[in-house]
């Protein structure tokens, strides 16, 4: 074997090792499945967590992989909410078909708006994504005949899931449905980011100039990842609309994009699980804080954000990681 071939073999082995499914990942999804059977009185809450997790996963694709700082990701989530709600109300009661159609429409919106984030610096991108977000919010607000305006879109009643299961008031079917969709989309995202195409996106994020000099079409990568992430956010929105039978203007609000950023940062970017872990952490923290100070819980959220930046997320994560390694070292 020549030296060149040896390098190639080593490289492809390294890539395969990184992308192999680890035991902890299987544990994670088994735990998620266990919540479906073990926590029947928490379905509504869990449903919300898993939808937020999927939404944050889609932001992770944009920030953690694409390297695009977006402050208007709620645009796609909200668009998905309204699209799925309207589809259900006017002619497409089947949830799965509604979900697929919504994904397609949000992907189209993502594709069109992706060209807006290709140009300019981080600042330009932040402002463009922010403007697209508030622009959609303004449109939804100004079209009360279609969206219900400030009253929200009411009476979204999806039909039977798979022609068999009816959405119950305890949220069992809803949670099972959201969890299953999230799992399928997660697997697809995982395949995607560990594909050669996914690796090339990471190369673009690390250094766009070098990536383009080895023949990677930078803009095409960003368009694809942005479009995919938009579709994911749209599906998350569609799940929310279908499982809660209601869409409010709040889904397009600025604080949604901001909270989402916090969720992703809490969970960590660039390894796909960050969104799901962050959504769970955020829900726990939010519940705890809003019990503590119902009106002013946002203050503590702000404090968490500020401290995360000032202390540095790495340093906060480093302590438990170090303990974990010690434990593993001791047991091995």
């Amino acid at each position, binding site marked *: 074997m020549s030296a060149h071939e040896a390098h190639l073999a080593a490289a492809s082995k390294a890539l395969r090792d990184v992308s192999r499914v680890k035991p902890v990942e299987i544990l994670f999804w088994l735990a998620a499945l266990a919540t479906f059977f073990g926590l029947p009185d928490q379905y509504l809450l869990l449903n919300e967590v898993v939808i937020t997790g999927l939404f944050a996963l889609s932001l992770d694709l944009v*920030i953690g992989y694409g390297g695009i*700082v977006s*402050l208007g990701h709620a645009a796609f989530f909200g668009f998905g909410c309204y699209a799925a709600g309207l589809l259900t109300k006017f002619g497409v009661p089947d949830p799965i078909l509604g979900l697929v159609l919504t994904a397609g429409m949000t992907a189209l919106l993502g594709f069109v708006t992706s060209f*807006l984030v290709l*140009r*300019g*610096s*981080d*600042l*330009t991108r*932040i*402002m*463009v994504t*922010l*403007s*697209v977000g*508030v*622009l959609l919010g*303004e*449109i939804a*607000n*100004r079209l009360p005949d279609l969206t219900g305006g400030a009253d929200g879109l009411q009476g979204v009643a999806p039909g039977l899931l798979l022609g068999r299961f009816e959405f119950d008031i305890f949220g069992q079917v809803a949670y099972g449905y959201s969890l299953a969709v999230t799992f399928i989309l997660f697997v697809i995202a995982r395949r995607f980011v560990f594909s050669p195409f996914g690796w090339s996106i990471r190369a673009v994020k690390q250094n766009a100039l070098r990536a383009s000099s080895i023949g990677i079409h930078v803009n095409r990568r960003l368009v694809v990842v942005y479009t995919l992430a938009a579709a994911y956010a749209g599906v998350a929105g569609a799940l929310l609309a279908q499982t809660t039978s209601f869409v409010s203007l709040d889904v397009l609000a*600025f*604080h949604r994009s*901001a909270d989402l*950023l*916090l969720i992703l*940062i809490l969970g960590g970017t660039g390894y796909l699980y960050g969104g799901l872990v962050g959504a769970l952490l955020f829900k726990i923290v939010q519940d705890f804080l809003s019990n503590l100070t119902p*009106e*002013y*819980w*946002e*203050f503590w*959220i*702000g*404090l*968490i*954000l*500020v401290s*995360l*930046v*000032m202390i540095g997320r790495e340093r906060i994560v480093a302590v438990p990681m170090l303990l974990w390694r010690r434990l593993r070292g001791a047991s091995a």
Partner: protein
Amino acid sequence: MLTNLFDGIAYGMLLFVMASGLSVTLGLMNLINLAHGAFAMAGGYITVALVNQAGVPFFAALPLAFVLSALIGLVMERTLYVHVYRKTHLEQVMFSIGHVFMAMSAVSFVMGSEQKFITIPAFLDARYEVLGVSMGAYRLLIVAVCGVLAATLQYVVARTRFGAQLRAAVDDPVVARGLGINVDVVFAATFAVGSGLAGLGGALGANLLGLDPTFPVKYLIYFLIVVAVGGSSGMTGPLVAAVLLGIADVSGKYYLPQFGSFMIYLFMIVVLLWRPQGLFARAGGR
């Protein structure tokens, strides 16, 4: 129609004074600070507390609003923001959003979440008719104060020694340090003055813009537009951008109320696509 134009100019001048600090910190120093509106809000609430509760005369409260907001800005710059300059843009976004959340909750905790109005002297309620244009005395005051401030700012940045130091420090901090410029002091002073101006703008504009705890988020987009469209060529760009924005927003809401703020957001997207560096970009600037 001319009345609308006048109101728009007053509104735009107000936006300029509030956003001028941001056009330096964000436009020139490249610090993504989404919390600038919090300083404007601080100025507004300081004035409410001083005038409505402590009985300080309105015209004495305005300079106090400037000084106190500047002090808040100075303390925050020295303790917190100084560490954020070199962080990534994502971290700057998170930090400043966190700051906004904290400021909003703190204000609604201390002052309540309802909209506040500053009791202004009665003679400012007067209206004058000049050549068929109906002008409110309060808006005339705003135009006058903001006009003087804009001229002073332009003079300071373009003509004084401090302005030259600031421009040098922004363009290349390392070389500026090598030339003996104390970059930290220059940045801190700039941040403080910017916060103070935001506070003064918040105090002047509280009754026009509506002062409540959501203020920093409500006007965030407007500040960003002023900076983005104004670009980084000194103070003229942001001033022109702010006045245009004020006129467009006032007349847009008057003539096309069904579109609301729609046109403004659309305008911003178009401008950013057309000229990502702003309408008045400076050659060689960052």
